[in-house]
């Protein structure tokens, strides 16, 4: 397997333009004949499916929820970045590009990131035209706010529901095509495998979650927009259904998996309340614009926050990073929170939390302004904790949130399997080792609206694809394998539930492959994971039938794939003997405890090739060349 990034030649600013005019086009009549399978209906999937159908392709779209509108993108709160420079604060495509590269700690592909910054402005135009009710100023112009890790206000938002509104825009565009008969939507359908014929992705095998029927779908290209895998940690900010199955199965069929260990831990989540905890709730990072983060100076200071005098509070982010203060990037904010809690200065039950205090902002701006900005977030917090942030400071703690890792893709967003594309959070993305706030929505929509619909034509125009039916042996073979996998889960009839296994795996990953990692811990984790996986195979109890709506079975299948992924994550984390972005290896840090990159040895994308069950995966390296930026030690001091 060789990694060809296909990044075009020429000056950075002209690459995409040139590339677009250079790539092959599919004639309108042929477009009708091409059937494209899009798995996922989140921002990336929905926007891609709708745009492809508008272009004239015949599209089938799949999601496991009961409606495409429920894709996890719906939960995004804070906002979406775009280099519009509406605030005239010196923003530009180049600055957004640079911030993203730097925020990603120089572990992403220049050409892709620049293209992302270029298309960002178009996204805002597109969404506004669809009726996305972005926040506005009194004059009627679009409003902006600033977001973690940058010094300009380039984030567009719709109250605290930006992801919802953007997704509804894409969803409505998608439903319009469904109504027009151009897209066939398959909700409550889970992709359980990829079918590759003569080295090309030609279809998928899907389980109907209502009837349990396993069926094949043939296509000329397959697009995976199946989101991130933070749920490998069990407790994360992701929706309960988020999983790795689709891309993991693709990985097993030949798609390289890039930077699996790059997972982002979000600094502002509501701390856990007990063993029953089923997921963690994010409090949008935008809160950091007006909230001040602190802990008591004294260890184990049990006084209620109001009674702790100013002098005895440690606003540690402001202290350590004067110029960015509370707006340092996520990985920094998260790690610092962990540090102060490990020192025993954490607050709240269990001592794993820090204060996010709005008292000053309320005094400065007035209650109504704060309510206008964060009203619904405060309500959400109050609902969950029964505490009102207007009176008591919020308690927050980091939680797994986003996975920069994913399927390796070239400049055309194609994986190492011809005709198989990955977009949105599912690919290894433009965020390098750490994603800046409000950049995932941007990337998902850039991929789906403005990049994939063009680049996929390049492949379809050249690939001479023969007609295939679902009766083709390859499909029958994969269908059989899928059914067998399902049966194995059902017939194990052991003693422990999939949920119990998932929790144990999650705990292990959080401890050993979470916010900070050590060679020793990762080695241990890998061993333990293998043991756990075997135990799972033997001792899991699913119950019910396969030919039925069986939520336990769905979960069991996802947990099984998480086990395999978890092992690869540890291997990748172990292999990368440096600290960069979210990947913090305790052995590699600066005296101030900052991530210490090793560009000489690790300035590459780690793309893992599946070598077969029980065999060690093969590492391929895509060297990262930086023409436009020069590498600096990231510093937010």
């Amino acid at each position, binding site marked *: 397997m060789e990694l060809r990034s296909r990044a075009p030649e020429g000056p950075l600013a002209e690459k995409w333009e040139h590339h677009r005019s250079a790539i092959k086009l599919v004639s309108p009549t042929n477009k009708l004949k091409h059937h494209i399978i899009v798995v996922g209906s989140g921002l990336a999937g929905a926007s891609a499916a709708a745009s492809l159908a508008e272009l004239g392709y015949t599209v089938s779209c799949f999601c496991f929820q009961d409606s495409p509108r429920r894709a996890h993108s719906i939960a995004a709160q804070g906002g979406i970045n775009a280099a519009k420079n509406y605030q005239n604060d010196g923003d530009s495509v180049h600055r957004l590009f640079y911030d993203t590269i730097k925020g990603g700690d120089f572990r992403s592909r220049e050409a892709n990131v620049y293209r992302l910054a270029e298309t960002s402005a178009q996204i805002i135009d597109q969404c506004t035209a669809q009726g996305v009710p972005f926040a506005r100023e009194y004059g009627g112009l679009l409003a902006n706010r600033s977001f973690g890790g940058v010094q300009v206000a380039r984030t567009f938002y719709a109250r605290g529901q930006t992801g919802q509104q953007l997704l509804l825009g894409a969803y409505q565009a998608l439903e*319009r095509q469904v109504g027009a008969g151009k897209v066939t939507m398959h909700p409550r359908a889970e992709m359980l495998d990829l079918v590759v014929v003569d080295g090309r992705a030609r279809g998928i095998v899907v389980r109907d979650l209502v009837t349990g029927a396993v069926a094949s779908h043939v296509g000329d290209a397959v697009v995976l927009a199946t989101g991130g895998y933070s749920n490998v940690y069990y407790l994360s900010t992701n929706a309960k259904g988020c999983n790795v199955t689709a891309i993991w199965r693709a990985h097993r069929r030949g798609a390289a998996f890039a930077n699996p260990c790059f997972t982002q831990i979000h600094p502002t989540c509501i701390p856990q309340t007990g063993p029953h905890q089923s997921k963690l709730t994010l409090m949008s990072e935008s809160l950091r614009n007006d909230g001040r983060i602190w802990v008591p100076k004294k260890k184990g200071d049990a006084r209620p926050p109001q009674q702790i005098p100013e002098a005895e509070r440690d606003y540690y982010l402001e202290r350590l990073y004067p110029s960015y203060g509370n707006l340092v990037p996520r990985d920094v904010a998260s790690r610092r929170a962990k540090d102060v809690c490990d020192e025993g200065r954490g607050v709240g039950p269990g001592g794993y939390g820090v204060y996010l205090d709005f008292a000053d902002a309320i005094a400065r701006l007035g209650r109504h302004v704060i309510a206008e900005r964060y009203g619904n977030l405060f309500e959400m917090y109050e609902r969950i904790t029964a505490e009102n942030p207007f009176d008591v400071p919020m308690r927050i703690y980091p939680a797994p949130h986003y996975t920069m890792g994913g399927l390796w893709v070239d400049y055309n967003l194609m994986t190492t399997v011809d005709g198989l594309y990955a977009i949105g959070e599912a690919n290894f993305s433009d965020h390098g080792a750490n994603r800046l706030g409000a950049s995932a929505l941007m990337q998902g929509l850039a991929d789906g609206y403005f990049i994939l619909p063009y680049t996929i034509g390049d492949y379809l125009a050249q690939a001479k694809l023969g007609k295939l039916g679902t009766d083709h042996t390859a499909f029958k073979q994969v269908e059989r394998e899928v059914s067998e996998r399902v049966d194995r889960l059902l017939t194990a009839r052991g003693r422990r539930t999939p949920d119990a296994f998932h929790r144990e795996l999650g705990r292990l990953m959080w401890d050993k492959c979470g916010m900070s990692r050590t060679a020793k811990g990762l080695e241990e984790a890998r061993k333990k994971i293998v043991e756990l996986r075997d135990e799972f195979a033997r001792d899991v109890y699913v119950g019910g039938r396969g030919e039925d709506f069986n939520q336990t079975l769905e979960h069991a299948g996802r947990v099984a794939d998480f086990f395999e992924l978890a092992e690869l994550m540890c291997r990748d984390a172990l292999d990368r003997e440096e600290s960069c972005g979210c990947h913090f290896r305790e052995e590699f840090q600066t005296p101030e405890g900052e991530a210490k990159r090793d560009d000489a040895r690790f300035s590459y994308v780690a793309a893992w090739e599946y070598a077969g069950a029980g065999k060690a995966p093969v590492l391929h390296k895509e060297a990262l060349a930086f023409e436009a930026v020069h590498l600096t030690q990231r510093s937010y001091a």
Partner: protein
Amino acid sequence: MTNSPNIAVPPPRPGLVRSLVGKKAIMAVTGVILFLFVVGHLAGNLKVFQGPEHFNAYAEGLRSVGAPFFARGQILWAVRLILLASLFLHIWAAIVVTRASWAARPVGYHGLTPTETTYAARTMRWGGVIIFLYVIYHLLDLTFGAANPSFVPGDVYHNLVASFQRWPVSAMYIVAVVVVGLHIDHGLWSAFQTLGLNRPPTFRWRRGVAGAIAALITAGYIAIPVAVLVGKLR
């Protein structure tokens, strides 16, 4: 694919009679017409307190309005036709709408706890039926006299008093009028909502006003049988 690709085949019937929303509008308009009658009718009926002459004169007047240009009763009949048409449309719409709603929930709940809706809103349907039956009886009683023991054509005052002096009749009237009141209480506000005339933040006071009007109308109507029973009218 410039304009909406989802264009349905142009539906056969106009939206107003085709859709439930349209039927609700028809119901609202006819409802308001019926409401206006109820108001006018009350105004007329209250003349009963001015004594037999005035009242009978008024009843007579109803028949001879428009004279000499119109023959006796012509205008009255015109009005009656409008009322009949309204009532018919109103009931027709009510029945279609009600059946659609019943069909929309074949399996009922163990219990659904009402939070926002009112008693008036929940009794619209049976209330309507009661009103209908009442009106029939009422016509037989005071218009055609069939249900009235001592009916004297032309002497509306006498017929009325004769009827109400029997307390069960009065009681029945009072109940009916209360039902009409409830119907109008929800109906009037509901009609504004259905016709899209409610604009925030006014709908709160619209509700209040509808209630007040309904109460006044009910009180006005009740006054008559009560007056007869206590012997003020004889």
